[in-house]
């Protein structure tokens, strides 16, 4: 029997298929990206990306983050490589990353093109609502070889979301006004994360019909809608409460003011497309329907 | 009337006027002549106290100018500048009325008396027809006369003219100078005129002051001041001095090199 030549032939055929060096993927904005099988040096260009990656169980693999990345605590120890406005390309090069992950809602096309030109594998996510976040978590799980952890996270987020939906199913939706800018007043319209959350949490966003994602309103309009709950998105939720309540107290005809239903919310929990958005959702549901969430 | 006593003035390092003294008699018509840079315009500015000499004094009817307030000076001395750039279209009457400014103090609006004086000034200068016309629409000669009217509205005892005939056609020059002469002779308006044109100065002025390098070279009748020697010394150029066929005043003719 001529075993030896057959073996050699089999080996020659099987060889290229059995040991692939990298994934060829298409990212969430339609760009083809070549990603190493098991990335060991990852840079995250936005805070939500950082949170997702740490949430997937990565730690030492994350070598660079943006200056805005503040969660978890560990993230603050990684090298800062830039902001939404500009990147420190030198620093990025010096970190020798094998994978860079950014977001379509924050990092600019110019930045990404430049990174590409410099030869870096750059994967961009672009979640637009709650479901989009789940998708992004799943995708990133595949990209960084943590598929299982990704699925676990997604399952957990889905079940917590479902719990909120179930608990608030038949309750009347309070009229909610969410303020993300104090001067001028900016609220959240269709297509924003906060709008999605408000409706998932059993509330009715008074600005839900606004085409713009972050429309700027006059106070007249707010008075006209007479919201029952006012949510104020703040980077310093513990700090400004007194001031905010005092400013709203002028408008006594607003039900939310009359009944003291003005609440500050951590903007990181409601505006950042990461796993913690579920916490934002749960907090909102608690604020809209306190009777249900003892 | 005006007593200029040993005044010296400098802008920066160099003295522009040195030890200049002369007297202006009431009712006279003085011509200030001299080369560029001799200090003519500076001297005029000192005469209405725009500039203050570092040395010396100027007395107006025995009172030092520096002791007088600006409005007080303005009621006695008026100046017509060489050129005035018109930025916004005030009417001629509005401009002449500004001549009443020294008399109004803090009051915002002119009285009917002020209006009357302004109108009279415009009559004397034959600019009444221009009253409602915008200043940027009138001719150069008319504009000059409006500014004279403004000066007259100040009811001054002395009027200073800085190169008044520059850029005027000869018929306008003649009209202008006739007007000045009439005001001088018939109304006793003392006049000091700085001029490049020595022939005009010679023809119309009683007295000439010839300046050279900030010092007075000669003072006197045109016949005494405008001589071939004086001109050659001050201007460094040879000329022929003749007599005006009608008035007898000296006339300078340029000679080709």
């Amino acid at each position, binding site marked *: 029997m001529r075993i030896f030549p057959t073996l050699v032939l089999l080996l020659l055929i099987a060889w290229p298929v059995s040991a692939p060096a990298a994934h060829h993927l298409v990212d969430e904005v339609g760009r083809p990206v070549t990603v190493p099988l098991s990335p060991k040096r990852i840079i995250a260009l936005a805070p939500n990306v950082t949170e997702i990656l740490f949430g997937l169980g990565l730690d030492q693999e994350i070598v660079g983050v943006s200056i805005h990345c503040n969660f978890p605590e560990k993230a603050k120890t990684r090298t800062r490589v830039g902001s939404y406005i500009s990147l420190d390309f030198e620093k990025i090069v010096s970190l020798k990353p094998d994978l860079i992950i950014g977001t379509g809602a924050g990092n600019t096309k110019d930045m990404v093109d430049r990174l590409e030109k410099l030869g870096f594998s750059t994967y961009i996510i672009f979640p637009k609502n709650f479901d989009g976040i789940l998708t992004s978590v799943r995708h990133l799980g595949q990209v960084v070889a943590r598929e299982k952890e990704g699925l676990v996270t997604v399952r957990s987020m889905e079940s917590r979301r479902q719990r909120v939906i179930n608990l608030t199913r038949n309750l009347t939706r309070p009229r909610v006004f969410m303020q993300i800018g104090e001067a001028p007043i900016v609220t959240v319209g269709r297509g924003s994360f906060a709008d999605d959350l408000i409706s998932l949490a059993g509330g009715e966003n008074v600005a839900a019909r606004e085409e713009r994602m972050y429309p700027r309103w006059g106070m007249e309009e707010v008075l006209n809608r007479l919201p029952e709950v006012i949510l104020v998105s703040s980077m310093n939720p513990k700090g400004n409460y007194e001031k905010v309540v005092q400013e709203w107290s002028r408008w006594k005809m607003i039900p939310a003011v009359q009944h003291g239903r003005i609440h500050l919310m951590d903007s990181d929990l409601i505006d950042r497309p990461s796993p913690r958005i579920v916490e934002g959702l749960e907090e909102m549901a608690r604020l809209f329907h306190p009777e249900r969430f003892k | 009337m005006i007593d200029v006593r040993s005044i010296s003035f400098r802008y920066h390092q160099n003295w522009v006027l040195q030890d200049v003294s002369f007297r202006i008699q009431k009712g006279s018509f003085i011509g200030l002549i001299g080369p560029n840079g001799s200090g003519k315009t500076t001297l005029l500015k000192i005469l209405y106290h725009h500039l203050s000499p570092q040395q010396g004094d100027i007395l107006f009817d025995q009172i030092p100018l520096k002791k007088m307030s600006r409005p007080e000076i303005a009621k006695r001395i008026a100046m017509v500048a060489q050129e005035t750039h018109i930025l916004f279209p005030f*009417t001629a009457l509005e401009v002449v009325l500004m001549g009443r400014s020294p008399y109004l103090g803090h009051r915002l609006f002119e009285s009917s008396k002020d209006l009357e004086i302004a109108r009279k000034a415009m009559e004397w200068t034959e600019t009444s027809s221009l009253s409602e016309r915008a200043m940027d629409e009138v001719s150069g000669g008319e504009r000059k006369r409006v500014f004279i009217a403004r000066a007259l509205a100040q009811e001054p005892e002395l009027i200073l003219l800085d190169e008044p005939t520059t850029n005027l056609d000869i018929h306008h020059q003649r009209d202008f100078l006739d007007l000045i002469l009439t005001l001088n002779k018939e109304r006793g308006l003392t006049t000091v005129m700085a001029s490049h044109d020595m022939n005009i100065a010679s023809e119309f002025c009683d007295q000439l002051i010839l300046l050279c390098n900030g010092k007075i070279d000669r003072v006197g009748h045109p016949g005494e001041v405008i001589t071939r020697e004086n001109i050659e010394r001050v201007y460094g150029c040879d000329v022929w001095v003749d007599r005006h066929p009608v008035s007898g005043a000296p006339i300078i003719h340029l000679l080709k090199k």
Partner: protein
Amino acid sequence: MKLVTPKKVILISALLTLLLLGVILLAVTLGSVRVPFRLSIQILIQSIMGGNVSGSDTEQAIILSLRFPRAILAGLVGAGLSISGAVFQALLRNPLADPYILGVSSGAAVGAIAALLLGLSTASLGLPLVSFLGALITVLLVLTFGRQDGKIHPNTLLLAGVIIGSFLSAIIMFFISISQREELRTIIFWLMGDFSLANPQTLLTVFPYVLGGCVVVYLQARYLNVILFGEENALQLGVNVERLRLICYLFASLITAASVSVCGLIGFVGLIVPHGSRLIFGPDHRLLIPASGLIGASFLIASDTLARILLAPVELPVGVITAAFGGPFFIYLLRTRKTMKVL
């Protein structure tokens, strides 16, 4: 007769005041929320007269706490910017001057942005105060550097103002680069000029400065006419040019500083309203100043009303509207060359 007499000034001012009242009424009745015309006017008049006011709480709040104080504030700022613009144009003998040319606005901007970055909110009275201080410091700085041999020269003043303004702009850019997203939005709206940022309580603090400043400069109106013909002419007419320049510079800057500190840098008003007023009423400041003030007030109130209703419920910053009108109007002026030869 084209001459400006007290009677003429009073008559034209009365007419323009009627126009202003009409514009205020419009501003009170128009808005993103529909309040019936008659009801709006009823609410306004009843509250002024005292006694019972009709309408729901919301409607009253909209008319009396939002639209009316905002209209008054816009009118005050519009008048202030227009009058100080006219004064600066005379002071600098430059028809292209506006209240911001000497750097006062940059100083106010630095003050406001610094206050924002330090955590003061635009609704507080602290922010306009810091902004005002920033403006005043700039005024004094420009005055110090704008003097030559102890005297104010228009060209040196202009130079000092432009240079100091540029330096302050660099500081503003630095602030912008280190600020967070939330602050950034507020900063940008402030730099565009915006009345929704203004706390109506600032009306009381701004009012005396603007009114006082306008009265002081009006008393110089006759001298302002004279100074347009140049320093020599003014001096020989007995005008104390140095004193005039100092008073006008300080008080016009004060008016500008007070206006800008409450609502940011609203552009074009201080430039085109004096020009437009001059076109209609002539260059005599005794009429030009009150006319510019009243027209400026009406113009800015109308612009702000438009800013509120054009894309309702979204509000535009009023600076966008004034620029949209200002630009074409200026081009029109350029093409007709009606007001002056210099343009």
